Structure formats: C-alpha cells, structure tokens
C-alpha cells in the first residue's frame, strides 16, 4: 500500500488499517519496552523510557502515510501507552474527539489524526476500536443516535488486530472502544499527530537530555517534536524534503 493509496482510503472512510507496521525483532523489542513502562507506571511518559518509542514517532512503516494525510507541517501531539484490563467494562462509548471543537469546519479538515499500534491480538470481544466509515464527513452537529450499547451503532466496523498492526483514524471520525470481554489485556501505543502550528501536549524540557539530543540532531525530528526553529515561525514549518513555504503576496 503506497502512502497515496492509504490516504485515499483514509479520505473516504475516515480511517485506514496498516497491517504489520511492526514485526519480528522490532515488535518484540517494543513489547518488552512497553512491559517495562507498564510495570514502572510510565505509560504516559513513554519517550523517556526507551529509545524505541522515539523511533516509533517517525517509523517508516507509517510516517509517510501520516505525512501524506496531515501534510508537510506534521507534528506529534503526544505518544502514550494504553492498557485495558481483561473482563472489564472499560469501553469509551461512541464519540468524536473533535465534535466540540470551535473555529474549524471539520468535515473538510485534517486537524488531528490518531495512530493506534497494537502489541497484542485484539479479538472481536477484546476492547476493539470501532469506527463508523465516512462519519468524518458528516455535517457538524450531526446528532449521535441515542443508543444503549456499543453494538447498536449502525454501520460500525470493528478493528480486529494482530500484534504489530496499526490503525490511523481521523479525529473527527465517530468511534468507540468496546468493553473488554476477553481474557487478555489490550496493549496499544496511541499517538496523536497534528500540525506544527498547534500546541504539543508534552513539554520538550520534560524529556531527558539523551532523548533531547536524539531529537535535536534531525530537522524532521525537531519539527515532529515541536522544537522551535530559529528564524521560522510555526506557521511556516515544513519537513526537510518538502518545498519550503512560500507566502503568496501580490502588488507593491
């Protein structure tokens, strides 16, 4: 699947599946690092736990896709680990992350996109993410149906996943996380990608010196992690191999 093909799916459905984004030794390493972060209660501080989490932010299996969708001014908002215990009523209900957002006409915007990378199998009864395809194009104010259970949502699709699979989802797509009725926990790494002109949800200064050094050494990482670039405003940021921003101005 090329980035453009993935973008086409995302643009029409509001999400796209990326099978086998992680595999083999790399997947094992991330699973192991996740386990350690979980044990030390640092799932919301992944970047300081292991370098593999830094590498996940610009991973070649999906960053070209995220970039094709979000644009050359892409930036990370956060990366967190998520754990859903087995046999728990821990579902999130059907919602849309951006439904109350002001100032933006959302049916034609890409303001925020979420990436879920699964580290364990997610069976149909195992805290599945589910989406309503095409709902990212609904007119603003389109009412959610007043339903009682997750399963009642018309037209929904469940994201049944294998370890290493990823899903990229528009923040305006209707979605839910179902209750975990299985006997296995759901372990997922959740990232949120936004534009460089938006605020991150972490402070660069809170990252360790070691992590900061890895970020500062690369133009694209500086942008992805929201490090200001001298002489350039956040409205002009672009990734390295893309055309620099050229403001249109006519008349003297």
């Amino acid at each position, binding site marked *: 699947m090329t980035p453009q093909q993935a973008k086409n799916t995302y643009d029409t459905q509001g999400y796209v599946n990326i099978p086998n984004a992680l595999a083999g030794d790399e997947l094992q390493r991330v699973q192991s690092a996740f386990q350690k972060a979980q044990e030390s209660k640092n799932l919301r501080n992944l970047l300081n736990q292991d370098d593999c989490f830094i590498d996940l932010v610009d991973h070649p299996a999906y960053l070209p896709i995220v970039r094709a969708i979000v*644009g050359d001014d892409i930036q990370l908002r956060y990366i967190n680990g998520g754990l859903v215990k087995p046999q728990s009523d821990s*579902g999130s209900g059907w919602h849309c992350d951006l439904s109350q957002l002001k100032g933006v*006409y959302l049916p034609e915007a890409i303001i925020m996109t979420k990436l879920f990378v699964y580290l364990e199998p997610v069976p149909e009864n195992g805290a599945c993410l589910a989406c309503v395809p095409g709902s990212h194009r609904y007119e603003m104010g389109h009412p959610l149906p007043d339903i009682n259970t997750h399963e009642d949502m018309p037209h929904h699709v469940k994201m049944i996943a294998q370890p290493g699979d990823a899903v990229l989802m528009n923040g305006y797509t209707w979605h839910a996380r179902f209750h975990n009725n299985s006997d296995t926990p759901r372990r997922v790494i959740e990232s949120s990608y936004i534009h460089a002109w938006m605020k991150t949800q972490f402070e660069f200064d809170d990252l360790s010196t070691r992590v900061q050094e890895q970020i500062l050494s690369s133009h694209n990482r500086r942008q992805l992690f929201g490090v200001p670039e001298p002489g350039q405003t956040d409205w002009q940021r672009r990734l390295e191999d893309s055309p620099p921003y050229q403001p249109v101005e006519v008349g003297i």
Partner: protein
Amino acid sequence: MTDQQRIDFEARGYLVININNDALAQLQTAFDQSRDHLDDLPNQDDAFISLAEHPNIFPIAHTIISDEIQLRSLTGFIRPPDSAGRGWHQEVAGLLGVHHALSTLCIQVFIHLDDAPKNGACLMAVPGSHRFKSYLPMPDITHIQDMPHAVKLPAQAGTVTILHGNLYQAHTRNQSNTSQRFLNLTYVQCWMRHALPKLSPHTVERIRESVNLCQLFAVRDLSSAPGYWSGQLENYPEATGLPNRQFSPLKVVGKGTEPNR
C-alpha cells in the same frame, strides 16, 4: 457584539470600531515609552496586558473566535514616511489542514494611534474574500491599488480594524510626510501556538490575577488532555465562534454502563 456587527463581519470579513480618547491617549503614551521594544510590549507596560481584554475590542474578538480564544501576538509598529507597505496576502494561507473559507482560526486587530493623511499608510481589504476557497489564485497585479473590488479602510487615531485571518488584505505605502503608529493584536484558538515574547515574572504575576488573562496569554497548564481543546472564560456569555454552528446534543452514546450524555 451587536447583530449588525456580526452580520457585517460575516459578510465582509472585517469590522471597524473605535476606542475612546482616554484609552487612545493611554496607549499612545505607553507606545512611545516602549518604542525600542515594540516586539516585547506585554513586558513593557501593564496597559498592553489590559489591552488584550479591552472592553470595546475583546467582547467582539471573543464572539468571533469562541471561548477558546487566546492571544497569538501583540506588537507595535511604526510606518515612517515613504515606508513600504505589504502586498495582498491572506494571513492564514500557510496553515495546512484547514478549509479556511469556512473556518475562523485567527483574527487580526489593528489599532491606529495616529490619523492617516490622505496619502498615508492604510489597510485595504477585499470584502467577502475571507470566504474565497484556497485554490482561487490571487490576481496577477502590479500595484496594490489594482486589486479588483478592494476598499481602503478608515484610519484615524482610535480606529480599530478587525480582520478575518483569511481575508485578502494589504497595507499601502506611506507616501505622506508623517509617521504612523499602530498596534497589532492577533487572536487565535487556545490549542494553537502563540508567538508572544517570553513573559517577565512581573508580567506573569500580573496576568495570574485574572483567569481570562491567563488563557489569553497562555499562562496555564495544558498538559492535561481535557484542557487541550477547550478554554474557559469568566464573566462573558458562552461563545461558540463565527460562523454559528450546530453541535451534537449527545457527546457520548452506547457505552451501556451509564446514561448517554
């Protein structure tokens, strides 16, 4: 913001109002005392901190942007005789991911501190162009005055011009013999980055006296997820921004363990 002002802004993409003579005099004095630090105004005089919530300007800005309003920048500039203007542009054109013709990410507020002579520096705008779609190319013109349908906006001391960020706007050359002073405030949504100078301890202390100023100057903790997308102002009616939009009455449904909400 009156209904007529709202209609005018929605239709034209700009609004012209005034501040009174006392406020003008205070800003002129503060401006002159800060002439060497026009990029650092919030740290120069408390008058510039209060300006962010000026009673003539802020209620309008709040209605246009929404409860999630924040200041992006607050600067001053001087247009000396024969200084160049700026060609036609759209302030938000570089922001990717947004359908600007139907969105309101940003407004600019220009406060004229001097009367503009007939041939002085002034703002021009193309009424209604804030609804132009991004693929519509700017006309290939040589002079600012060549722009079709453009209007020159009033420019007396105390005039306040509020522009939608997607509006076609230009600033004409100052061909007069006198300098003109301006203040420029840009308001954006609170989840956007700001371009304010680093605030001094005194400035932060002053800002912390007010919940609203804390939001406007981004002096608050945004590390918690619920706070990222939302703002909360005191003593103003709720504003969802312009254009008026519907929001779903139910935010979460189908969880099965608690009533829908």
